[in-house]
């Protein structure tokens, strides 16, 4: 009882001021999360035609159309493949690079600055850059590979397009993992490393058996953020391939953009968004629980 009373007393501290302080955050959430969500829910039950607005309410028809749409599930599969390949590559590469830098490899200070650059570049810009890097009409990547006798049909096959996008995504986001991993590795007390150096045979073993487990709580947050971001990927593949050839690189965001924004089918597009939100929430919740269990 004393504890509860104490909590209640603590809750009264500050009076109206603390609510005033909360107000901007609440207003932000209402304006930019709650209101759009309600609006999307509303549209998802409606039939919308450009120039006429909502022409009627169709119950669950939009949801039925989405759930029976091959294109929708295809876009989900492409997105899942994208996330499943890109994020692990970024995590592994980012952590390895952070480990190398933390060991004081030569030139690591300069390398740290250069590595961070793609992180501050727009996805769309990187996508357009990719067009010039991969093009068969004088693109440097294609040129170097051709010189080595390797020909990759970057944009004329589905797998080539998605591979091209993933490579650029890894290039862009590895620094994000790198920076977090560097901080996580740096936070491990030096004395633990020193003790481990006496027992372990190599830096490789120290990384695997000491740095990875100790950095894992921080890394899980980084992974979670990357998974959420990667599920929403849009600009990079849109600028790079426009979702083609065919629909082979049409991730969910592109499919939803085309439906809702380009063709003004707000009803189906909103239903797509709600279904995707539910799917992602389920995945993230599961992922988060697993991570917490591992951390515990």
């Amino acid at each position, binding site marked *: 009882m004393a504890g509860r009373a104490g909590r209640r007393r603590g809750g009264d501290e500050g009076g109206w001021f603390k609510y005033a302080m909360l107000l901007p955050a609440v207003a932000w959430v209402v304006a930019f999360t709650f209101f759009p969500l309600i609006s999307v829910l509303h549209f998802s039950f409606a039939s919308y035609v450009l*120039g006429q607005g909502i022409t009627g309410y169709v119950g669950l028809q939009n949801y039925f159309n989405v759930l029976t749409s091959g294109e929708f599930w295809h876009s989900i599969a492409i997105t899942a493949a994208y996330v499943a390949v890109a994020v692990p590559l970024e995590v592994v590469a980012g952590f390895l690079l952070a480990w190398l830098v933390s060991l004081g490899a030569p030139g690591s200070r300069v390398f740290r600055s250069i590595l961070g650059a793609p992180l501050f570049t727009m996805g769309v810009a990187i996508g357009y850059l990719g067009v010039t890097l991969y093009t068969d009409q004088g693109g440097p990547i294609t040129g170097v590979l051709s010189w080595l006798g390797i020909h990759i049909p970057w944009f004329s096959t589905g797998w080539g397009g998605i591979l091209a996008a993933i490579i650029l995504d890894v290039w862009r986001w590895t620094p994000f993992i790198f920076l977090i991993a560097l901080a996580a590795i740096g936070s491990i007390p030096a004395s633990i490393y020193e003790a481990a150096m006496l027992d372990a045979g190599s830096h490789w073993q120290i990384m695997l058996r000491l740095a990875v487990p100790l950095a894992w709580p921080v890394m899980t947050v980084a992974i979670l953020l990357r998974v959420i971001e990667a599920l929403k990927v849009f600009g990079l593949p849109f600028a790079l391939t426009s979702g*083609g*050839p065919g629909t082979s690189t049409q991730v969910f965001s592109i499919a939803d953009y085309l439906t809702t924004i380009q063709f003004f089918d707000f009803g189906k597009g909103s239903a797509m968004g709600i279904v995707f939100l539910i799917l992602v929430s389920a995945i993230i919740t599961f992922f988060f629980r697993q991570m917490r269990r591992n951390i515990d």
Partner: protein
Amino acid sequence: MSKNGDHEELKTLAEDYLRGRIDRRRFLLLAGAAGFSVPLLGRLIRPAEAANPDLLPSDPISPYEAPITKQRVAFLKTKPFKGVTINFMAVKATVGDCVKYHAPHWEELTGGRVNVAEVPIETLHTQIFADLASGLGRYDAYQTACWFYGDYFVPKEPYIVPLAPYLADARYSYWNPDDWLAPMRKLYEWNGQVYGSLFDGDCQALYFRNDVFTNKDVQAKFKQKTGYDLPVPPKTMQQMHDLAGFFTGWDWNGDGGKDWGISLHAKVNEQGFFHFLTLAAPYVISPENKYFYFNPETMKPLINSEGHLRALEDYVKFLANGPREEIAWTLGQGWNLFLEGHAAMEPTWGDLPTLAQDPKASKVRGKMGGAPIPGTTEAFNPIAGAWKKYEFNQVGNVNGGTWHPVLSRFSKKKEATYDFMAFMANRKNAFFNSTQGWTGVQPGMKWEYLPPAGTSTIAEWEAQGWDAADTVQYLDAYYANLTMPLQEEYLRIPGAAEYWHELDINISAVLAGQLKPKDALDRTADSWEKVTDRYGRPRQKALYQASFT
């Protein structure tokens, strides 16, 4: 005038003048000396303009306009739009650059100001209709593609306004819709009313390397391989396929590398599907059938008919005669292959011969050939469900954006906005636009063509940097295409962008080997049914039928 000899003399003189062999002064002198009246000669030179007594050839007040009305000369003296700013949404592409080029000239004349907002082509439709549907109306005019037209007419009160009241007012910059070639004018109209001001005039024709096609050694090689004379230009799709195959895989341009038979571009969302629409037309359109997209009675899609299927199967075969990567190329990448001299043919827009005139970007200046898209000897009537043989079935087209300005009904500065639109449509500016590669503009007016079709001269084109032979090839091909008795219909109903997008991605999937042609067209038809149902079948049907009037 009563004697045949007089007719011949006048004809010869007119041809000499119109082909640029004699100047205007000498033509009038010689023809006048031969007894022809000056008013008659005036009508021959510029028929519509000669009939207008208020029209002056030019006036110092506006060095950018010719001809110009007396009323406009007086109007401009007042700096009529001083302090007025108009907002113009343009495509972030060559045609948008062209708008930006003219804006300061108009500002200088009228005292007004133009804000040109450039929007990438892939989001242009969205931006225009988000502005209109939301009622914000932040823009006074939009540079539109013709396939957006249906969407402007969905609300009870259309989003754009007819131009007739402004056209009747001689204070605005002069241009005359009667000068349009008929198929082009239809694209600027809805229900018989003009809504767009002259800007672009797109159609796809076949461009080829005339120098290579007429080379004796190449011709001998071709005959040895195929058993018939190399056709210059190809008349049938079969000949085009033979040529594409023949020119693929060997060094016919002598630069040491292997070259290609055909250049195409097919990246999704980059207008690549227009290649298919153009090349498929003679498989479906015939003297017995003018419908390409839908059955006008039921709005059932025709896109998966046997004719469309054979056209798509043949289209895929072209892919083997160009670089594999062209299925992911943008328009510019497709043009580059031809301009660099590595492709023998390209079915595309008039930008190609126009860009070919720039020696910095082109190795093919003076080497261009042009012709209408080849025809077939058999076409499928999708309404009747039967193939029919023809001696020769060739179809013209107006495929493309035919990008041009339309006036928003929400605009509060309609007069100033129309004046800017008309200024760009004035003959002097319009002719400049269609002769420059960087503008992305092609000719749609009669006076831009050579005699006997039109009244421009080779000298006028040469003055804009054109090679004389290329000019004749280009304009003759364009004109022949636009005046062909059979024309492929142009889809202008609401949702046209979505119908075409579905076709675009499914064709792309076929080219990438992910779908069989039949499956791709069936999928397209299924998607089209859903789009039609969403917009409302009876309404779509009515608008589809109206789009033919």
